[in-house]
């Protein structure tokens, strides 16, 4: 080769002729492409476990992109009633549960149970396959070994079931949880077609049988009271917790705060044994024992009835006057405090004719319930703020809901086959019912449940049940609105739903029937039964029955939206039967007089260090009746008031504790007629004297590793005849001590109320202090809105920015530059329900740390609910959601030695996890102490299925780094990115997880610079303030102070 060739040769090639041709076969680039694609796809197929049937996203999308979350509507049923939900799904993994804005029980909010249930889906302790008991007589528990559905079907031998249980099914007993599901109702009807004489029972801890019976007595039918808090000016809660508990509490909280936002005269009165979420908003609360609540109800009824008499002038015409004109003799013995409270209540109720609501504790006796109905009736509320619908709970008020008939049936010896569908009766039935012994007597027992729990361990067959995110169903809300349950994921552990099992026992397959193959197939096997077909059949059948449009489109619409169109219980027009009311009143008075007599005889003081008290059992506010006891989020969620985690305790007033010389953490013995427990004491200021409150749902003994041995099982104190309120319990000290994992140990605000809570001087209901100083009385709602939004503070006038020499770090002028994120939290609306805490936990991959570390003060919640008392009397309980305040002059930022926490241009205090070395200097200098530290590798022991819950948009933090609220920066950035991709300027709105789920809508988030920004308007209100404003940190979180209760 000579040199000239280099320049001249046109065909010069790097290689010779033979090497220059393309190699045959797969080209290198294509090979790499295929390698990459197959690696990526292999990963994807491993993750996706979508259900086989078609599920429909809430927001219609043309296509699903990997990595882009999709929301599906579904609903979760608790205590029989459904709450509509939207579930966020990342590539087939449900990761977060939010409220369905179209569902009446949710209106976009979700409670703690609904939200935490996504963790329950991935619970590694769930039953993974059917298990068969291997009986060993000497063991307290029956051991079991893994089996399969096939073996179960063989052993159960459904075709020959009539031979065992009788042709009419006398020997068959079904035990369900009370439910309003029309699908379950239909399937039960099918079972009864096959076995007309089978026994069906309903049981749960939260059955509210008294409520149903009272309504049956008072109205002649079982009705459910419906409340419209949007129309109520005066709300009186007698032992109830309408804004924090119950099937419709999200809706109630939403409506109540809606009303409060519009009018500054809405007043809330609470009488209760133990402080509740609702009472944190109360203008006037009184602590009374459960029997005291009954006394108050009787007292209020008498006041109301007497006033009605004097108002109408019908002095001799009313039966009240003839029979029960309240006289000094038969009036309940109210003390001065109670008398005064009733006086104030009556005055308030009088000031709000037809626009008040009186609600009471559903565990109170039938007489009390009935009197409350009567009070609402006397006040003219029925038809305006209160109305009734027929109860949609299956067989509500009938014998099948009564404990006695269940015990009778089980004890009769006639039951051959017991089938328990969900629930955990072995735990939730009272101790003296001894379910375990009775269940062992039956020939064969089948338990369909999610866990190997107490009930599973006394059953012959343990069958894995589906989680609601894995099943098809139809549920019914408290007001009768029906919704479709659609699965987000195919069953993780081969579970079957209640409806499927019922259909199996019924021996028919309604899904096939609609396809025209009636009965021809004989008894179908479980494999032939599909929940999807059952739901569709039920949906179309109900539609036809109601002569509505029956098309595929209506089905798809119902599935997509999660709500069945035009389906709610109609109002029933009922009035309480006067004679029943009067006899209830008489009964109550006699009971109270008798009790007062007993109480009078009993030495009031503590004798021999044993106190005789009333005991109020209530479902745990965090693990319900124990069904969520294996859910670590809920175990570690502080109780809204006591801030207790990982335990239950005997709650008592400081006075009683002092008498017994008990401190928080001392173990006391609590004895009732039927049993006794040893339980640690927790002193709760504001608790009623002479009474104890103990949460049920703890002391579980199943195979659920998290639930086991947490707390004490207080069911041992209940008998099958006593309700949740036990009138005579003995409490004494054991002398032992344990540590209670309480996240906030200090109750008093230590005189810092103004600085922390903005204890304002603005009072509720004061007229004529609006901006325009026009009288609000005659000018309608608009004026009222203005009135409450812009009340003039007489003392505090705090601008958003304190006087400072320095320029603001970012420009917050409207329309300039980047968005400036900010948040307001209205303390006049926050109930401390803690839904935001769970929302944050599931959105932001916040780990649980366990009891040991909570004891050490290492809980990781990015948002917490602080609770304060102004003084020992607990006349006022304040709650305050506390999260990173995103200070413009953040004290954490300047002390970080490695620039791991810095400020963003849009006003966020950012945390750079991978730069953090973990000096904790930032936390020391944070006046709000909202920073959390990864003391251990908390994410190291997340179970394999548990990992599927993690939000892929949020970093899972490693050991040794700080973390804290980010204002859900992943949501902000996603919104901005999407706007950028769409080529439009970003307009929002972005919702943080806490804001999104807040039932009271107390949290408002947005940009200060965007026009018409709600957050900007709210943060300039006179009652807006920053926590610890005097430190000059200029937080981007502003609180709106609670209004001061009305004087007098």
């Amino acid at each position, binding site marked *: 080769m000579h040199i000239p060739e280099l320049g001249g040769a046109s065909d010069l090639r790097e290689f010779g002729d033979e090497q220059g041709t393309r190699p045959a076969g797969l080209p290198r680039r294509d090979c790499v492409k295929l390698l990459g694609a197959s690696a990526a796809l292999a990963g994807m197929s491993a993750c996706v476990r979508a259900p086989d049937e078609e599920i429909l996203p809430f927001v219609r999308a043309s296509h699903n992109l990997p990595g882009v979350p999709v929301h599906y509507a579904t609903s979760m049923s608790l205590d029989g009633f459904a709450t509509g939900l939207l579930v966020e799904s990342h590539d087939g993994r449900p990761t977060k549960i939010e409220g369905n804005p179209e569902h009446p029980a949710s209106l976009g909010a979700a409670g703690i149970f609904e939200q935490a249930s996504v963790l329950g889906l991935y619970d590694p302790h769930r039953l993974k396959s059917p298990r068969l008991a291997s009986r060993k007589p000497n063991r307290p528990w029956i051991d079991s070994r893994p089996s399969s559905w096939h073996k179960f079907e063989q052993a159960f031998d459904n075709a020959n079931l009539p031979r065992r249980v009788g042709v009419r099914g006398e020997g068959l007993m079904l035990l369900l949880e009370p439910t309003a599901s029309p699908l379950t109702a239909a399937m039960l009807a099918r079972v009864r077609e096959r076995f007309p004489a089978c026994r069906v029972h309903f049981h749960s801890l939260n059955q509210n049988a008294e409520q149903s019976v009272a309504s049956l007595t008072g109205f002649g039918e079982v009705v459910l009271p419906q409340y419209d808090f949007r129309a109520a000016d005066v709300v009186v809660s007698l032992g109830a917790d309408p804004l924090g508990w119950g099937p419709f509490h999200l809706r109630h909280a939403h409506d109540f705060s809606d009303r409060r936002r519009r009018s500054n005269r809405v007043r809330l009165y609470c009488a209760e044994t133990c402080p509740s979420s609702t009472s944190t908003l109360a203008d006037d609360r009184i602590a009374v024992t459960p029997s005291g609540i009954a006394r108050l109800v009787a007292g209020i009824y008498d006041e109301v009835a007497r006033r009605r008499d004097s108002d109408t002038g019908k002095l001799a015409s009313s039966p009240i006057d003839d029979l029960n004109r309240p006289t000094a003799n038969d009036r309940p013995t109210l003390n001065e405090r109670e008398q005064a409270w009733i006086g104030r209540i009556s005055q308030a109720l009088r000031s709000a004719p037809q626009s008040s609501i009186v609600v009471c504790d559903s565990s109170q006796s039938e007489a009390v319930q009935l009197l409350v109905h009567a009070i609402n009736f006397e006040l003219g509320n029925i038809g305006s703020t209160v109305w009734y619908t027929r109860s949609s709970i299956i067989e509500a008020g009938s014998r099948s809901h009564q404990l006695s008939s269940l015990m009778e049936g089980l004890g009769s010896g006639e039951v051959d086959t017991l089938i328990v569908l969900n629930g955990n009766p072995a735990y939730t039935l009272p101790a003296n019912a001894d379910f375990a012994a009775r269940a062992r007597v039956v020939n064969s027992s089948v338990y369909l449940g999610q866990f190997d729990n107490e009930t599973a361990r006394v059953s012959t067959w343990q069958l894995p049940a589906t989680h609601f995110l894995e099943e098809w169903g139809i549920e019914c809300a408290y007001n009768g609105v029906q919704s479709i349950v659609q699965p987000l994921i195919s069953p993780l552990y081969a579970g079957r739903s209640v409806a499927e099992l019922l259909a199996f026992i019924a021996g028919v397959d309604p899904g096939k029937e609609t396809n025209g193959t009636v009965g021809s197939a004989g008894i179908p096997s479980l494999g032939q039964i599909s929940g999807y077909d059952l739901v569709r059949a039920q949906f179309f059948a109900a539609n036809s029955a109601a002569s509505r449009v029956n098309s595929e489109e209506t089905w798809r619409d119902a599935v997509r939206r999660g709500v069945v169109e035009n389906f709610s219980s109609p109002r029933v027009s009922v009035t309480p039967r006067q004679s029943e009311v009067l006899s209830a009143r008489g009964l109550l008075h006699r009971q109270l007089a008798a009790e007062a007599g007993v109480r009078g005889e009993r030495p009031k003081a503590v004798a021999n260090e044993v106190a005789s008290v009333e005991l109020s059992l209530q479902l745990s506010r965090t693990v319900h009746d124990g069904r969520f006891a294996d859910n670590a989020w809920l175990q570690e969620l502080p109780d809204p008031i006591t801030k207790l985690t990982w335990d239950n305790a005997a709650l008592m007033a400081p006075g009683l504790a002092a008498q017994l010389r008990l401190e928080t953490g001392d173990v006391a013995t609590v004895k009732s007629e039927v049993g006794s427990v040893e339980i640690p004491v927790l002193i709760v200021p504001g608790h009623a004297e002479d009474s104890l409150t103990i949460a049920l749902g703890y002391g579980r003994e199943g195979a659920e590793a998290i639930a086991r041995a947490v707390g004490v099982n207080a069911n041992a104190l209940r008998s099958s005849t006593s309700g949740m309120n036990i009138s005579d319990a003995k409490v004494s000290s054991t002398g032992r001590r344990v540590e209670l994992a309480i996240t906030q140990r200090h109750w008093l605000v230590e005189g810092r109320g103004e600085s922390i809570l903005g204890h304002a001087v603005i009072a509720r209901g004061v007229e004529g202090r609006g901006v325009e100083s026009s009288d609000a009385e005659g000018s309608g709602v608009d004026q009222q809105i203005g009135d409450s939004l812009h009340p003039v503070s007489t003392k505090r006038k705090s601008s958003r920015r304190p006087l400072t020499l320095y320029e603001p770090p970012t420009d917050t002028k409207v329309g300039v530059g980047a968005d400036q994120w900010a948040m307001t939290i209205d303390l006049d609306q926050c109930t401390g329900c803690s839904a935001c805490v769970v929302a944050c936990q599931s959105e932001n991959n916040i780990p649980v740390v366990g009891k040991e570390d909570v004891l050490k003060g290492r809980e990781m919640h990015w948002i917490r609910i602080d609770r304060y008392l102004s003084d020992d009397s607990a006349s006022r309980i304040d709650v305050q959601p506390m999260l990173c305040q995103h200070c413009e002059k953040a004290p954490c930022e300047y002390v970080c*030695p490695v620039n791991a926490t810095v400020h963003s241009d849009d006003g966020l205090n950012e945390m750079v996890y991978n730069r953090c070395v973990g000096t*904790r200097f930032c936390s*020391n200098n944070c006046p*709000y*102490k909202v920073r959390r530290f990864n003391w251990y590798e908390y994410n190291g022991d997340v179970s394999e299925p548990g990992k599927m819950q993690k939000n892929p948009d949020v970093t899972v933090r490693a*050991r*040794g780094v*700080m973390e804290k609220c980010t204002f859900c920066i992943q949501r902000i950035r996603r919104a901005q990115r999407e706007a950028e991709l769409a080529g439009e300027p970003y307009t929002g709105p972005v919702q943080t997880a806490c804001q999104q789920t807040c039932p009271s809508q107390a949290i408002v988030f947005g940009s200060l610079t965007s026009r018409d920004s709600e957050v900007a308007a709210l943060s300039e209100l006179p009652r807006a303030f920053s926590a610890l404003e005097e430190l000059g940190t200029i937080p981007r979180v502003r609180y709106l102070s609670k209004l001061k209760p009305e004087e007098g």
Partner: protein
Amino acid sequence: MSNEAIAHRDVLRVDSLPDDGKLTVQLLRSAFHSSWMWWPLFLLSGALALLFVVAMAVTISRGIGSWGNNIPVGWAYGITDFVWWIGIGHAGTFISAFLLLLGQHWRASINRLAEAMTIFALVNASLFPVLHLGRPWFFYWLVPYPATTGVWPNFRSSLPWDVAAVTAYFLVSLMFFYLGMLPDLASARDSAASRTRKRIYGVLALGWRGRSSEWRHFRATYLLLGGIATPLVISVHSIVSLDFAITQLPGWHSSIFPPYFVVGAIFSGLALLLMLMLPIRSVFRLHDLITERHLENIAKLMLATGTILGYSYLCEAFGAWYSGDQFERFAMLVARPFGPYGVLFWLMTLANVASPQLFWWKKMRVQPVVLWLVGLIVFAGMWLERFVIIAGSLTRDFLPSSWQDFVPTWIDWSLLLGSIGLFLFLFLAFLRWMPFIPISEIKRLRYEMVQAGPERSA
């Protein structure tokens, strides 16, 4: 000369000292022969040091969770131990450099001990800030170096300055210590019996021959290093105090911290010096070298610093009250004296302010047992002071909702006791193998005093 001589008079008991050669042999004796009580002490401290290693291993492998820290108490034993040890490290340089510049010749007999104490205290002190990190393997991110990330330390924070100050102090102290030891190492080389020892001391002595030019350079360098070290005595603990003073936590947020901390540091260092020096004086019969004059001077210094500390405590309380700030007032006037660590506060006040008041009496100043006990009390009291300030303030801050107490774990205790073990281990090793009395300086001082002698008698 005469004034200086008078000042020297009772610094050495010149008359009872042997001649130079014998003095050298006598003072090097300890380096060549072990005493019967050395081994048990050495092994005991070694065992404690091992505990330190175990506790460190647990901390690094499992996480800071093995300590008792929490939110709000982000700093507790770890930083308390750090500040305490670094404070102790101040006495050495104070005695050797500060007093050198001030011409206080009495320092000669004890400066080597004090310097060794400084070095070993600093070894401990420098371990804790690294250990207390959530991710200790990234401790170097606090050092300004041109990282590829382009991220520098945050110079507004006091922690990078801490690193700089402690590192500088450690290096200068080490140089000062080593330089001062050179002539004595050479003496050890020359008097060592075995070849191995000769080799080792020979290498350590860096070829010191004792020429006059060497002495000239030595004196100049020594004085120069003293000049450099002296401001560091002031700066290091001032910067350490800024770890607290720059925050806004009530109980930390205080502008008197720098002088207050420096004084406290010297105070605690003198206390430990007393505790080490008195047994050494008695065991090695060094009464001729470490005289009552030394004891008295240290006692007087402790009386002064202890009283200043008491004044600082008062100032803190007064400042809090005078500020009118409710959080400050609560922290200083309620939580600190009467809160969960109130007992510790009063113990600390008793130990640090009351106990040195004994030294108003000369009898007490020269009584070794009293001195040793007061040293011990102050040694513990100063640890308490740091704990009360650091952890105590964190337990009761602005929002009552976040109030939480701190309970130490066995790891916390192991790190504290283990660091004492490591210190003793190193110190005993130093006593055993190194010339712990500055022989050359003693000889020089004696020479000066003898020279001054006739003049005085004349």
